[in-house]
């Protein structure tokens, strides 16, 4: 065990030393630490229920829905690929070393506790929003963080148990996946039936997901019961949930190394998948990672010179899209924005589509700041194509604008019908959405031009996100002023669009030198 702890200790020490060596990186980390500290302080210090006092049932409903979605996604992926705490370096060095497999599992478990920091960070960022809308208990923040830890510790263990059973035959895999799909479908049907009756998303969320069957349902119900203690206090549900999760984590760990000492094969595929996912993230390709690629689509390569990059992008997009350019990221942005609209209270009724636009722009920031251009720069072709820098940059990014136009069209036409918005508001929202996307895209490229390929992808993403927010903020603030004076949502959207357009063009001009200054990473 000492040897394994040596890896953890030294990894941490070297990371710290690496950060100290690079001042720009140090500033980035200090910035992140301050941000997290601020979020934590705000989470604990801010009064609860500032905007409204949502019901405990609604809170439990949100928590159940979130954990249901997360467990479903992660465990289904685990059944397919095997879930793992391990990297390939662990496979190559520790699995072949004379160390007991149970000690290696324990080491992985300690590493995973470090991995929960990411979940804690994501959870922390949501707390101020939750606190604004719900009158939480004084210890509520701790309960939400505890549930995030429970989730992060339990899903790899559950996935490993499922995988070790399912990996024996493809029939077992199919059976398990179908079982999960049927359960998910059942929940969706029950939920839609409830909405048809109540005609209210919030009421249905509050009633369906607080049903005793879901509240006490193993794992999902247990985890959300822990989170729901933030509102409901230490009820019987909480204690059942906490004991259930504790027993589950301890029990599955014991089961894994007592009953199946030979777990190496079960985690091998997962480790390979994990490495591939990390590589995809580095290339800025994580949203397209592991998507099913169609062999044939009705989209041809066309154009010459830099234009060919644009058509190649469209072809790649069509091959992974569900329909035309509608892919996983489109669905994420569209569904999240529409759900957000229904959940948010809108007493004023002044802002109809703008609320959806702002949330969709925020979601787009989360998906686009991963940096799609990174994938292009990982390969040498774009550097060699005989065309001007501006042409190459324009056509390499045009595909993203087309996709945003397509997504924006679906999102705002759909929500425009739902909220009965005017046609000009719908059109201005679509244009503003595309321009937000353009700002993020060229902001990303400019950041690459300024920073190059820095030490940590996560730090880079964080810096870009903050920079993008700061850049678009004046447009939104100005738009709010326009709204105050004119009371016209359309004019507000025009102002925001105009600001984003100027910003995007400026960023484009400053970004064109990227092919002159940036070197290929391969």
């Amino acid at each position, binding site marked *: 065990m000492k040897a394994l702890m040596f*890896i953890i200790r030294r*990894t941490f020490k*070297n990371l710290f030393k690496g950060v100290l060596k690079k001042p720009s990186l140090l500033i980035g980390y200090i910035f992140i630490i301050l941000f997290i500290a601020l979020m934590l302080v705000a989470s604990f210090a801010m009064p609860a229920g500032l905007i409204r006092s949502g019901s405990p049932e609604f809170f439990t409903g949100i928590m159940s829905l979130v954990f249901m979605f997360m467990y479903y996604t992660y465990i289904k992926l685990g059944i397919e690929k095997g879930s793992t705490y391990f990297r390939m370096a662990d496979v190559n*060095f520790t*699995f072949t*070393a*004379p*160390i007991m497999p149970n000690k290696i599992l324990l080491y992985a478990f300690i590493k995973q506790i470090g991995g929960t920091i990411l979940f804690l960070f994501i959870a922390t960022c949501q707390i101020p929003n939750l606190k604004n809308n719900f009158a939480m208990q004084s210890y509520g923040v701790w309960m939400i963080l505890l549930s995030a830890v429970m989730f992060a510790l339990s899903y790899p263990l559950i996935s490993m148990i499922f995988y070790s059973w399912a990996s024996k035959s493809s029939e077992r895999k199919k059976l398990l996946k179908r079982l999960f799909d049927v359960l998910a479908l059942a929940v969706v049907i029950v939920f839609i039936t409830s909405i048809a009756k109540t005609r209210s998303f919030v009421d249905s969320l509050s009633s369906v997901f607080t049903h005793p069957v879901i509240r006490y349902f193993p794992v999902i119900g247990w985890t959300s019961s822990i989170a729901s203690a933030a509102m409901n206090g230490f009820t019987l549900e909480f204690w059942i949930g906490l004991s259930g999760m504790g027993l589950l984590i301890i029990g599955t760990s014991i089961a894994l190394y007592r009953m199946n000492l030979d777990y190496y094969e079960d985690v091998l595929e997962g480790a390979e998948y994990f490495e591939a996912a990390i590589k995809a993230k580095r290339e800025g390709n994580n949203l397209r990672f592991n998507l099913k690629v169609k062999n044939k689509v009705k989209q041809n390569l066309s154009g010459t010179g830099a234009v060919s990059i644009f058509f190649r992008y469209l072809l790649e997009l069509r091959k992974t899209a569900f329909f035309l350019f509608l892919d996983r990221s489109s669905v994420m942005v569209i569904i999240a924005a529409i759900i957000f609209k229904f959940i948010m209270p809108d007493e004023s009724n002044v802002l109809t589509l703008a609320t959806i636009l702002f949330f969709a722009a925020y979601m787009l920031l989360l998906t686009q700041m991963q940096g799609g251009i990174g994938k292009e720069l990982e390969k040498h072709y774009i550097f060699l194509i005989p065309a001007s820098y501006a042409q190459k940059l324009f056509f390499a990014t045009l595909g993203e604008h087309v996709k945003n136009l397509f997504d924006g069209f679906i999102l705002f036409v759909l929500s425009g019908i739902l909220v009965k918005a005017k046609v000009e508001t719908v059109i201005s929202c679509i244009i503003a959405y595309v321009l937000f996307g353009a700002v993020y895209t060229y902001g990303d490229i400019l950041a690459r031009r300024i920073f190059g390929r820095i030490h940590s992808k996560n730090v880079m993403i964080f810096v870009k996100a903050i920079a993008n927010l700061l850049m678009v903020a004046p447009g939104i603030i100005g738009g709010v002023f326009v709204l105050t004076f004119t009371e016209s949502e359309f004019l507000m959207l025009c102002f925001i669009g105009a600001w984003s357009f100027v910003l995007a063009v400026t960023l484009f001009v400053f970004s064109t030198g990227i092919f002159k200054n940036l070197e290929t990473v391969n």
Partner: protein
Amino acid sequence: MLKVKNLSKKYEKVLAVNNVSFEVNSGEIGVLIGPNGAGKSTTIKSIAGLLRFDGEITIDGKPNKSIEAKRVFGYIPETAALYESLTVWEHLEFIARAYGLKDWKDTAEVLLKRFDMDDKKDKIGKELSKGMQQKVSICCALLINPRMVMFDEPMIGLDPKAIKELKEIFVELKSAGCAVLISTHILDSIAEIWDKALIMNKGEIVYVNTRDAMLASGESLEHIFFSLTDKEEEKPA
């Protein structure tokens, strides 16, 4: 030293390795050769204890997955994967701790020098090129002074000097009584060094012979390899 008896490995419905048996003795260099997809890596991974399998594999008389067996064998995977935040020297220190080695530092220095890595001791894993990562992987496997060592496509990514060093190391390991198993599909890379050839095709060992016996018969390994692995392609579709 290495005994593989009736090894079979099935991935769902695909039989990747079918009832394979062979031995590599102490002081012998065995080469496992075959076209892509022949089952070489699956065999190597099974021996390394990374896969479940049917059959029996022993190293120095002990089951390959036992702690005792692991103490004496080294493994160099096809794709080197290092800990991104550990330095080259820390990788070696970890191996020394994991295998309970004493007085390992001089050996580590010698190994690093042989592979021109002595000036890169303080470089962390992610700062190294693929070839350098492969060299670290080799140094780690050799640091334990193994009695059996397996190389899965070891030459890929190495520079000419490192290839030359590695070939010399194969011979030195053999002289020291170590059993060496090298999996490759590049015949030229092991032409001068092998003692026992094991040709795999479609999950089965289709040929086993020693260098002496083969030379006596007047055949070449390349000729035998193509005659055994090209058969299917010659048939009309």
